[in-house]
């Protein structure tokens, strides 16, 4: 701590250069804060406490291949399965095809397996009584300023209804005030209404969800479920909800790979930039470092000071960047009225970010610090 003023003085010796470098670091970690939130949202999809007790069964061929509804009672009969439900992808868009909505046709008991949807009993009762009822997530309702009682048209990108039109009309009967970001951005309609209205479905379901009592028996139960349709035309693949969601997300895009690639490029550039800044800063202070060593500062203290300076530089810029990202998310979400839904900067993002800051600081500072430590005092004082 007693060297703190020396580190601060070294950092701000050239204010202009330090500020420009800090802006670069801040920009890099602002991007990291926003992108890591997206990555985590995708990575954590399906990994809820309730999700651990749910198995998802889909077609082994492809997630767009439907399964016969007749499988439901057979899956329910598997030892360890407590309850079975099902759903279909609906794929609706509101007003514009670009306003895509995660919308699903769900079985009557679907909400029993998803308590995190947080639908109040009155809304659930209205949903049960209304054939064209629609439950919408709060973020979605905020985005389009929907209210209970509104009648809205949704354009299905795949399924026509009974009159051959792809425009379906729904009555909003409840808002799902869920903390699960996925559900908060989704809409649920009745599977029976969907199945009876579209000529394309005819008693098929997109996937089954089974609630199991013993999480430890999950692998065995999954094997037993898949054994039901083994060697049939509709072989299934059963996996935990987290794994199923991850696979489903990966079929859209490997978000983790994309985010990691972008951040890798950003941090590599940052390494070169700050590495150059640190090398220049230490080179300019050769005689000052030589004086410190002359006075009696041990080599390891000089090494520590240069490393601390480097880590401090990255930490200051990085914390500002992550701080801005943390403030920016809620601000943008509120200002956009739900149109944009930026994920918050989580504690794990902060921890990962701080780890990256320290690592970059140490990598960037290592060479200049070693050079400072090995500085030959006599040569440095003579300007050689």
């Amino acid at each position, binding site marked *: 701590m*007693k*060297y703190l*003023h*020396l580190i601060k*003085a*070294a950092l*701000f*010796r050239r204010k202009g250069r330090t500020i420009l470098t800090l802006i670069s670091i801040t920009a890099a970690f602002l991007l990291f804060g926003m992108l890591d939130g997206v990555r985590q949202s995708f990575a954590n999809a399906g990994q809820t406490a309730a999700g651990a007790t749910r198995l998802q069964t889909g077609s082994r061929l492809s997630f767009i291949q439907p399964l016969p509804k007749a499988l439901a009672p057979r899956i329910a009969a598997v030892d360890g399965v407590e309850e079975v439900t099902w759903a279909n992808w609906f794929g609706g868009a509101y007003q514009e095809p670009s306003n895509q909505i995660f919308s699903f046709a769900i079985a009557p008991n679907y909400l029993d397996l998803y308590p995190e949807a947080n639908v109040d009993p009155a809304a659930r009762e209205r949903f049960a009584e209304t054939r064209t009822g629609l439950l919408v997530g709060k973020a979605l309702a905020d985005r389009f300023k929907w209210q209970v009682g509104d009648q809205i048209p949704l354009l299905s990108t795949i399924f026509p209804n009974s009159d051959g039109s792809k425009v379906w009309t729904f009555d909003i009967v409840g808002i799902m005030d869920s903390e699960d970001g996925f559900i908060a951005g989704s809409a649920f309609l009745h599977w029976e209404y969907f199945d009876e209205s579209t000529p394309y479905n005819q008693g098929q379901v997109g996937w089954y969800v089974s609630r199991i009592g013993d999480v430890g028996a999950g692998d065995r139960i999954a094997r037993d479920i898949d054994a039901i349709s083994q060697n049939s035309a509709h072989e299934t693949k059963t996996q935990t909800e987290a794994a199923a969601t991850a696979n489903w997300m990966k079929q859209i895009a490997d978000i983790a790979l994309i985010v990691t690639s972008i951040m890798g490029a950003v941090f590599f550039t940052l390494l070169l930039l700050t590495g150059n800044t640190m090398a220049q800063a230490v080179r300019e202070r050769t*005689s*000052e470092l*030589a*004086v*410190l*060593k*002359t*006075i*009696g*500062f*041990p*080599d390891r203290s000089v090494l520590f000071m240069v490393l601390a300076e480097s880590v401090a530089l990255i930490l200051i810029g990085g914390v500002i960047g992550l701080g801005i990202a943390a403030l920016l998310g809620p601000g943008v979400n509120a200002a956009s009225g739900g149109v944009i839904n930026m994920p918050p900067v989580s504690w794990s993002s902060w921890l990962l970010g701080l780890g990256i800051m320290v690592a970059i600081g140490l990598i960037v500072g290592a060479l200049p610090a070693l050079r400072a430590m090995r500085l030959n*005092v*006599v040569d440095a*004082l*003579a300007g050689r």
Partner: protein
Amino acid sequence: MSNMIEIRYLSKVYQRGKQQVEVLHDVDLDVASGDFLALMGPSGSGKTTLLNLIGGLDAPTGGHITVGGERIDQLGAGALARWRAAYVGFIFQFYNLMPALSAQKNVELPLLLTKLNGAQRRKNAAIALQLVGLADRASHKPGELSGGQQQRVAIARAIVSDPELLVCDEPTGDLDRQSAEDVLALLEKLNKEHGKTIVMVTHDPRAAEHATHTLHLDKGTLVEQAAAEPAARAQRAPA
């Protein structure tokens, strides 16, 4: 009076490319405690090399150096750094102050290596600045001080940890006459009143007149050792 510095058969050889250059050759030297020695000689004669060896900044190729009873030629890098921090104060031609730190913080630097707390460090630095006549400039940064004032801050930094030995490399080489005289008077005061042993490299005969002894080096060998002229000393003495 005991010797502060004892040097025997000292030699120093530098490797310059493929060539070996012998900078010092078989130097023997005794400097008594409380002495003020001026080292003179032409450029390249080995003055600064000898000073660096005495100050423990460089290691000899041969011979041995004892300073304050310690064989410093036998110390490792870490021990030598600790020894320098405890026993030697350095004064350079170009002051070598930290430009981003105030005079007070510059003077405190050697005390960071001690166990003194912040308040004690500030107090000792203030005393050192008072001794060199710059108590009122404690908060000024080097860029806000004249050359003479900067050198006095450097002297305060050199004496703040109360070392027995001061090594000065051309301390007046970058100063005007008046500032040089002020600095030399201050060194003389530190020598006479505070008992500091001083070894000073200089090109300036007038600076050397402030020393109690002057030695001349030529081509790495000591060629002359003479007591300073008593008449010259009397001339400089205040009326």
